[in-house]
C-alpha cells in the first residue's frame, strides 16, 4: 500500500475502528471487568499529533474522542502510519511509545493489547462467533458503525475521492436494518459527518431486510443492485445522495479488506 493510502488507513484505525471500543465495552462484561479500575485518558496518535483519538476509561465505561483531547494522561505515539496500521492489524510485536506519564501506567498498557484485541475479534469474527445470534447481531452492529465512521474519513482524506465528495449533494443518509441498529452519514457543504443511530431527519434511507443481508454487504459479498431489485435492500428518498456516497463505500472496503 502506498504511503498516502497508509495515512488514510491510519486515520481509519484511529477514527473509525478505535472508537468502537465504546460499543464493545458496553456489550462485553469481560472488557468492562478488565478496565473497571482504570481511570485514565489514553490518547493514540501519530507522531505530530494528527490524527489522534483519545479513549477515556472510567468505572468500566469507555468513551472515544476522535481528534483527541487536550492534556491526556497517557499518550501513545506511533512513529508513522505504517507502524500504526501494523499494530492495529496485529502484524507488529513492537508497541507504540508511551510518553513519560505513561510509564506510571505500564500495567494498564500491558493489558491494553488484550482490550484492543477485541476490536479484531468482533470486526473479523470467527465462524463460531457468527453462529451465535447475539454476537452475530453485535458484529453487524459494530461493522455498520465502522462503515459510517469510515465513509466520513475516506471522504475527507482520500485524495482520489475528492472529485466524488465535491459533487455530493447536501443531506443525511440513514443506513438501518429492519428491527436492528442504524447509523447515518451526512454531507453539509462538502463536509462529511457520521453518527450512531438513526438520523434526526434522513434525506435518504438505505434499509436492509435483515442482519444476513447487511452482513453480506458489509463483507463486500453482495451485489447491491441485485439485492435492491430482490427487495433485500430498500432505498428511498434522495437516491443521488446514496449514489454519491456509494463510491466512498467501495473505497472504504478497499482499505478494510
Amino acid at each position, binding site marked *: 500500500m502506498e504511503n498516502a493510502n497508509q495515512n488514510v488507513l491510519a486515520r481509519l484505525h484511529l477514527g473509525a475502528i478505535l472508537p468502537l471500543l465504546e460499543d464493545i465495552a458496553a456489550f462485553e462484561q469481560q472488557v468492562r471487568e478488565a478496565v473497571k479500575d482504570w481511570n485514565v485518558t489514553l490518547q493514540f496518535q501519530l507522531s505530530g499529533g494528527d490524527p489522534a483519538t483519545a479513549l477515556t476509561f472510567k468505572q468500566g465505561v469507555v468513551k472515544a474522542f476522535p481528534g483527541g483531547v487536550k492534556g491526556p494522561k497517557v499518550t501513545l505515539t506511533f512513529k508513522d502510519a505504517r507502524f500504526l496500521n501494523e499494530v492495529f492489524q496485529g502484524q507488529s510485536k513492537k508497541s507504540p511509545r508511551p510518553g513519560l506519564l505513561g510509564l506510571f501506567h505500564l500495567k494498564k498498557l500491558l493489558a491494553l493489547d488484550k482490550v484492543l484485541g477485541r476490536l479484531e475479534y468482533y470486526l473479523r469474527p470467527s465462524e463460531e462467533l457468527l453462529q451465535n445470534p447475539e454476537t452475530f447481531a453485535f458484529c453487524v452492529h459494530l461493522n455498520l458503525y465502522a462503515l459510517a465512521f469510515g465513509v466520513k474519513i475516506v471522504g475527507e482524506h482520500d485524495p*482520489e*475521492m475528492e*472529485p*466524488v465528495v465535491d*459533487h455530493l449533494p447536501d*443531506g443525511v443518509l440513514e443506513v438501518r436494518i429492519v428491527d436492528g441498529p442504524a447509523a447515518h452519514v451526512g454531507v453539509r457543504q462538502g463536509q462529511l459527518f457520521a453518527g450512531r443511530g438513526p438520523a434526526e431527519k434522513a*434525506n*435518504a434511507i438505505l434499509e436492509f431486510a435483515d442482519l444476513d443481508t447487511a452482513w453480506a454487504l458489509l463483507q463486500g459479498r453482495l*451485489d*447491491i*443492485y*441485485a439485492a*435492491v*431489485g*430482490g*427487495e433485500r435492500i*430498500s*432505498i*428511498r*428518498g*434522495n*437516491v*443521488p445522495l446514496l449514489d*454519491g456516497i*456509494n*463510491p*466512498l463505500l*467501495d473505497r472504504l472496503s478497499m482499505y478494510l479488506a
Partner: protein
Amino acid sequence: MGKEERELYTFTRSKELFARAVEVIPWGIYGHMSPTLQVPGSFPYYTASAKGCRYTDVDGNEFIDYMCAYGPMILGHNYAPVEEAAAAQQAAANCTNHPAPVMVELAEYLVDLIPVADWAFFAKNGGDVTTYSLLVARAHTGRKKVIMVNKHYHGVAPWCTSLGHGGITPEDHLNMLHVEWNDLEGFETLVKKHRGEIAAFIAQPYHHITYGKQELPAEGYWQGIEKICREEGIVLILDDVRTGFRLHLGGSNEYFGFKPDLICFCKAIANGHPISACVGRKELMNSASKVLYTGSFWMSAAPMAAALATLKTLKETNGVEKIKRAGTMLMEGLEKLGAQYGLEIETSGTPGLPFMHFKDDPDYFLQQTFCAEVTRRGSFFHPHHNWFISTAHEDKDIQETLNHAEAALRAIKNKM
C-alpha cells in the same frame, strides 16, 4: 386490506425471474433499466408483450407506457408500417458483407429533413455517436479539451461517466471541462481560460437530468453559446439522443433556435430498432473522414429501413404536434389533480418528454410513493427519470392515466 388495495398489481413472476437473473447476470438487470432506479416491489421487471402505447408484463399486468422503452417507441410499440419495412429489409438482406442501398437512402433523407445536416454517419447506440462526435471535433480542430454540462448524460463511455463508478479513472477525464447548465458566463470564462485548447462543447438541448426538475434554456443561452463557439473555433455538438424527433423533426436546435455543427440522434429514430446517427455540417465532413470508427452491426440494413419508415411516418402524420397535444393534456391534468388534492404538482420539461414532482418533496419520498401507486394501478410512471410520450397516446389513454393518478392521490391522502 380494502377492495382497491386487493386490486393493485402484484409482480410475483417478475420477482421469480429476477431471482434467477441475479444468479447469472450482474445487477440482475443492469444499467438504466435496473429496478434500483424505480421502487422495487411496485414496478414490473420483465415485459411479455407490447402494442401501441401499452405493454403487458410477465404477470399479466397491463400498463399505459410513459417511458416508451426510455424513448425509442415514438410511434408506439409494434407500429405496423415500421415493422413491415424492417421485416422486408430483413428478408432481403440485413447483415452481409456490404451495406444495403437503404443506408444511402436514409442518409439522404436525414440530410433533407435536418437543416444543419450535410452528411450522416450511423452506429447503434447513443453513446456510440456522442463519442464519435468528440473524435470528429478533435480531428477537425486539432485540440483535445471538451466542455460538457454538469449532470448531462451522454452515455457510459469513460469520458462521460462520473468518477466513482467501477473502472473509471481520473485520467479518463483529463480533457473534460465542466460548466453548469444555463451558465453562459461560466462557459465564456472557461473558454477564455483555455483559449485555443477546446475542441468542442457538447450538451443536451435542455437540462433533462435524472433526479431533478427539467430546465429549459434561458433566453439567449443557446444563441450565446453558438456565438462564442463560432468566434473561438469550437465545434458545437448537440446531444439530441433523448429528445430527438419529439420537439422538432429537424433537430431540437430548430425548436430552440440555434445551429450546432454536429447532432447526435438515437432512441426515437427507428421506433425501437437499434440504430443511432450523427449528422453534421459539410465543413466537418472531411474531418469526419479521418476518424476510424465502426462496429460489427453498424451497417445492418433492417434498422435503417425501420428508421426511414419511422421518420417518414412522423413527417406525414405530423407526429410532433400529436405528441405535444397528448403530453400537454397529461401535464395539465396532473397539475390540476395535485391542486385538487392539496398536494401541489409541478410539471417540467417539454410535452413530449414531460416530468413532474411535488412542490414540497425535495427528497422524492412522496414522488416515489405516488409513482408506485400509479404504476400499480396501470400507468407506468418512473419516479426519477423524465417520461416519454408517443403518437400512440390518445386522449382516452391520457384520461385513463389521470384516473389512475387521482386514485393514487386519494390513497396517499387517506394514508396521511
